[in-house]
């Protein structure tokens, strides 16, 4: 089986992190974002993964080759010379996808959840039509496009930002499609959600598969942190042995074995500590991700932050409110950062009192 992951462009929504490396390689819970999907696909028997990207990045090409070897799967990059939307990349990769005339997966790259690939295959085979999309329950359907479907899963219609309640299920960005769907897609910028799926619904060719458990689009910092919390909770129920337990650790905390944590700290709940991170004494961290090689000096207080690779946070710094430090940022001692998005290689010597971008 094959899968196509829609990576798209520069990942601007996840800046400043994506200024330093391609989004698929940004670590989510100590693993490159794309590897969460790649590993689950491999487990479901996928042998060939195509990454659809609309920009060229040497770093990505090298990493993809290496990660593919490690995961035991062939990973191909499919480059768009112009952005082709969410359907055009399927036409571009047509030759790869039709190779063995089997159904293939299509994934939005920003999605994290407990990937139900095997159940999707079973469901898809059972209804026997052209396509299956995964749907997930949301609390506020009016913010999204919702999916209305029958008890057997056959989709009746899509309703964009419904004013009155019609459904609380939205497109979760995971599909399994027959190769015949490719006949519906031309090689031009096309939206799979707005152009292809409605046509399939018209032909009774699209079914909905209900996702159990957590789901999050982690394409921007705020959701990245929410997704991290959901992932850690899921991990604590499924593989609690992977979580870190020690004095000063509160709730679900993931700590890379090479990280060091000082005395008198309170870390957690919902914290991810990356490789070679150093947390000095007397630090309090909640709901945050510390990326590889970052240093948190003593007596800091961090809540809802992403600390970029090799960044240093000085003593008695307070950071909160979805503060994101890019790569190699230095926050000087005793600074307060409230909702700052700090671009790479920057030294912060003055407090950031209100949310803003620091160029």
């Amino acid at each position: 089986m094959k899968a196509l992951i829609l990576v798209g462009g520069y990942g601007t929504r996840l800046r400043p992190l994506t200024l330093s490396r391609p989004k698929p390689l940004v670590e989510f819970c100590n693993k490159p974002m794309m590897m969460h999907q790649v590993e689950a696909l491999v487990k479901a028997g996928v042998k060939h993964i195509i990454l659809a990207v609309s920009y060229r990045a040497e770093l990505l090409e090298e990493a993809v080759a290496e990660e593919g070897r490690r995961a035991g799967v062939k990973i191909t990059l499919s480059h768009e010379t112009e952005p082709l939307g969410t359907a055009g990349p399927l036409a571009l990769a047509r030759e790869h996808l039709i190779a063995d005339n089997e159904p293939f997966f299509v994934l939005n790259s920003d999605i994290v959840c407990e990937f139900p690939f095997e159940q999707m295959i079973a469901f898809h085979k059972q209804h026997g039509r052209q396509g299956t999309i995964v749907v997930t329950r949301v609390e506020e359907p009016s913010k999204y496009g919702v999916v209305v479907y029958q008890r057997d899963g056959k989709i009746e219609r899509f309703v964009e930002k419904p004013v009155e309640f019609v459904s609380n299920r939205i497109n979760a960005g995971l599909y399994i499609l027959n190769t015949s769907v490719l006949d519906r897609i031309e090689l031009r910028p096309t939206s799979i959600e707005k152009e292809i799926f409605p046509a399939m619904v018209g032909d009774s060719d699209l079914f909905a598969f209900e996702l159990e458990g957590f789901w999050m689009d982690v394409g921007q910092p705020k959701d990245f942190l929410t997704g991290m919390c959901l992932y850690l909770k899921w991990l604590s129920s499924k593989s609690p042995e992977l979580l870190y337990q020690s004095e000063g650790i509160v709730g679900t905390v993931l700590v890379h074995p090479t990280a060091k944590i000082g005395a008198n700290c309170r870390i957690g709940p919902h914290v991810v500590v990356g490789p070679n991170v150093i947390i000095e004494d007397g630090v309090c961290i909640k709901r945050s991700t510390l990326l590889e090689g970052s240093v948190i000096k003593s007596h800091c207080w961090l809540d809802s932050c992403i600390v970029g690779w090799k960044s240093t946070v000085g003593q008695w710094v307070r950071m909160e409110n979805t503060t994101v430090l890019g790569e190699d940022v230095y926050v000087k001692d005793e600074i307060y950062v409230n909702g700052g998005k700090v671009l790479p290689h920057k030294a912060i010597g003055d407090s950031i009192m209100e949310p803003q971008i620091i160029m």
Partner: protein
Amino acid sequence: MLKAVILIGGPQKGTRFRPLSFDLPKPLFPVAGVPMVQHLIEACSAVKGMKEIVLIGFYPSEQIAPFAQDLAKTLNISIRYLQEFAALGTAGGIFHFRDQICSGDPEAFILINGDVCGDFPLDELVDFHLRQPSSNIITVLGTEATRQQSVNYGCIAFDKDRKEILHYVEKPSTFVSNSINCGVYVCSTELFKHLGAEYKAKQHQPHGYTTGSIDEAESLSLEYDVLVKLAGSGARSHVFLTDRFWSQIKTAGSAIYANRHYLELYRLRDSGKLAKPGLGGPKVIGDVLIHPRAAIDPSAVIGPNVSISADVRVGRGVRIAESLVLGKATIGDHSLVKNCIVGWNSDIGSWSRVEGTPCDPNPNKAFSKMENTPLFNGDGRLNPSITVLGSNVTVPSEAVLINSIVLPHKDLNQSYKNEIIL
């Protein structure tokens, strides 16, 4: 023989110093370890020939007299508190108590407004005063201010050679002079003759011309009834300029500024008072005063410009800079306190951040003074200021409190920025 008079005002004055002046009279507010007014008293007591220091104000006697008595013993000099029956103005008090001031026939007396701080050259000021022609009845200590800031003070125009004051205007609307009145004077007892004449003139003002209250008829202003009247009237007032540290203490923010400068004076003249780095105590940066009865964890880092009062408890890994921590306050582990006054008996939790914005003089401008900015700006928003915790305030753990003023006996349960918390 010399005397000194310090005008300490009363409870209706110093409201800009709230909420700290709720708990004790503003003159007794501790800066660099001792009450504000004690710095003035000590400076006066060190003047050659000083026999007695008189405090005049309208605080109830029991609030001031015990302090005056204790200090008199410590300094071994006569200190008396004379209570006005009402606010009599900046010259009404001394006129009312003129007999006490003149008793013993002093050559001159020093007169200081209680709401200033500074490093006053009092001996030189007295010498200068006594060297002037006998017509001189008051010598004003003056200092330079910027053009913009000068208009917030009493402005002095004077003869550059003779230092005679030619013109005096209190808070003019347009620029008059860079030289401003420091609120520190040396007066001859002849002053009371002049004040007597002014007083008499007021009693004869037609009825209805004033509000007619007794207070107003009794009230005399040093600025309007003395300095304005004497300027340019035959060498009766002179100015002596200083460029040493000087500031008014109007707002709580200026207490931080005063604290820093008094600590600097300790370092230059009496460094034994300051905390020493090492010796099993906390890490000390710059000028720091720690009361011997304060309990500070050795892992804390204190300074610069911090005064910590008696019975304060400071936890592990705490950072304090540019702040006053008053008696019995507690600061929890890993918290940061900066540009802040922590009131008596207040309690800050762990990993909290209590921070204000300093309102220091512009360091890039010569002669710039501390801005005594009003609480609110033109848009009705709170001006960034130092953070002040009144007494018995509780700040929860992990909270942030920035540029805020918290009134006494308040248990905060969240973070605040730029707010007055009633």
